[in-house]
């Protein structure tokens, strides 16, 4: 039961972060939403394992945290610290 409640909270947060990623309005908001979404996905996997009674797949959560970090930095590196003229509102 408690895992179900946590799962609902996690799914709602995922949805809210996704809506921010869909709507923008600036690129920075989208990157922020991506970062937040990644964190919530890690939580999603952890809670899902407990909800199904088989918390064996936490390796995946670790991988997601890692990929999220790398992905965010990759985007930042190309987008913000690169020499691109078109930043800001897209």
């Amino acid at each position: 039961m408690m895992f179900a409640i946590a799962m609902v909270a996690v799914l709602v947060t995922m949805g809210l972060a996704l809506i921010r990623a869909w709507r923008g309005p600036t690129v920075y908001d989208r990157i922020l939403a991506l970062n937040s979404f990644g964190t919530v996905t890690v939580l999603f996997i952890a809670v899902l394992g407990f909800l199904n009674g088989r918390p064996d797949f936490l390796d995946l959560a670790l991988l997601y945290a890692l990929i999220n970090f790398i992905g965010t930095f990759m985007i930042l590196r190309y987008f913000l610290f690169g020499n691109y003229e078109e930043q800001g509102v897209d």
Partner: protein
Amino acid sequence: MSHLLIPRVITKILLPFIMLYALYVQFHGDYSPGGGFQAGVIFAAAIILYAMIFKVVEAERVIKPGVARALMAVGLLIYLGVGFLTMFLGGNFLDYDVLTHDPSHSQHYGLLAIEFGVGVAVAAVMITIFYSFVDPLRD
């Protein structure tokens, strides 16, 4: 001062753990999700992270482009080599049972060997593709 100071410090701290995690995924593939392909990708991601947060030149000092190219072939050759080894020992191509006396151990050894080959090949290919993509930008 560079904008990337804090990311650099954090990346320095994290990189060993990322690589260790890649090795865990590589060699624990018999027991948990994962295997050579995923491990190779994670390892390549670690190198790419290093190249992006520091510089591509720095990463090229760690793994030279030529070495990455050679490892591409080496990975595939490890896989093929296991196949030919089993043929040499009297079995069929990629028939691991002949590797040792115990079939269960043979399976484990064979899987470890081919997963290692896959991991090396995938990591080298990803790093090579990354180098090829970023290289023209610098000139």
